[in-house]
């Protein structure tokens, strides 16, 4: 390393001027077969919804392929798959709703090791001087979750904070910054 990184600063309360874009909440184009909604609420340490958060997600498609150009196993074959969502509103109420497809399993670190389906998440907000990073796993992937190398490092009693629960049209998961059900956040 020759240079030091530029330090992070808070996204502040006014990011809605510059960051949201029309199709931000859509990981896949509207109408994509198999598309689901992932919804939830983000709570502060007093249990109050955080209205001015910015949420970003990054994930593989159901075949474990990404949207980017690095070509791990080839680029996703789903037309218009971005793999990325950005959700944040000028006048939010603490909830989010992204449209996506459920990701597939992915290789882990060692030979033959697999990661359970997951979505990487960044949360930014006024009052956060640096982003916070977490992951969404899926409650109905019991076997895959049990073998996941990241969940293995999470204390058993806290793993449920990372599990999205099935709903009629997808999944739901809340993120809590403090309290007994505090979400697990990661150092990446």
């Amino acid at each position, binding site marked *: *390393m*020759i*240079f*030091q*990184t*530029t*330090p*992070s*600063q*808070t996204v*502040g*309360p*006014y*990011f809605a*001027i*510059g*960051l949201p874009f029309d199709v931000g909440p859509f990981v896949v184009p509207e109408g994509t077969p198999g598309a689901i909604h992932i919804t939830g609420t983000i709570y502060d*340490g*007093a249990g109050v919804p955080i209205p001015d958060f910015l949420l*970003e997600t*990054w*994930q*593989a498609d159901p075949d474990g392929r*990404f*949207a*980017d*150009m*690095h070509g*791990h196993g080839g680029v996703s074959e789903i037309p218009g798959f*971005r793999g990325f969502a950005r959700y944040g509103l*000028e*006048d939010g109420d603490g909830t989010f709703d992204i449209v996506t497809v459920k990701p597939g399993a*992915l*290789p882990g*670190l060692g030979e033959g090791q697999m*990661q359970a389906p*997951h979505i*990487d998440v*960044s949360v*930014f*907000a*006024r*009052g*956060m*001087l*640096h*982003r*916070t990073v977490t992951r969404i796993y899926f409650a109905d992937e019991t076997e895959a979750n049990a073998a996941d*190398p*990241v969940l293995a*490092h999470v204390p058993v009693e806290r793993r449920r904070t990372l599990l999205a629960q099935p709903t009629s049209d997808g999944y739901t998961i809340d993120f809590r*910054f*403090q309290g007994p059900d*505090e*979400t*697990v*956040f*990661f*150092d*990446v």
Partner: protein
Amino acid sequence: MTEELQAESEADGVRTIYDPIADTPTSYLREPEGAHPPLDFEGYKSTALRHPKQPLIYLPQMITEITGPQLAPVVVGESDHDLTIQHDGEPIGERITVSGRVFDTEGKPLRGTLVEVWQANAAGRYLHRWDRWPAPLDPNFSGAGRCITDDEGRYQFTTIKPGPYPWGNHYNAWRPAHIHFSLMGRAFTQRLVTQMYFPGDPFFPYDPIFNSVRDPKARERMVSSFSIHDTVPNWAAAYEWDIYLRGPGATPFEEAH
């Protein structure tokens, strides 16, 4: 590594480790303690209820962390880099250019990466329904810009110098003038949101957000420099600011060379 990029790197006197487009690092550097401000910082009140109390859990970097979105073609319009031409009239204030290069910590330029900015107007007022302090809005200034870095990692915006403004953190609290920056980098791990400041701002000593970066040298990395060289005669003063994102991890892969 293309011959072209190799030549460019050598011309810059920069050591070549990898081509950020052709090769994907297998991991990105873990950052030292204090590289970024703490999530819990007493001087900045809003952090109190918005930081995790439990320690962060180590996430090994795997495929989801070393890949990342390429949004540039999706979101960047032709004149998005010029915040002074987005309305019928010209905005009020000191016209400036803000430019610089985006590098990783090995000094490799990041080309084709998305840079997004947003800011207050010359009076220090944001075009946002929650900003209610009594400074005027400017009908000719929205305050948002986007651009994509060129082959040398360079970005450039034309804008109006933002004003400082008061906020409610403590009695007589003021934010130094700043422009918010968002960098996507090439991988989830490189994502950065920060603020660019202007040299010599008298509000620096009093701002808990600026001072949440504890190392004075690190704070300096958020401050742009005035550049007479880049100033456009009879048109716009120039500020220059380079941005450094995390570079490849300690185990570089040289196999390809």
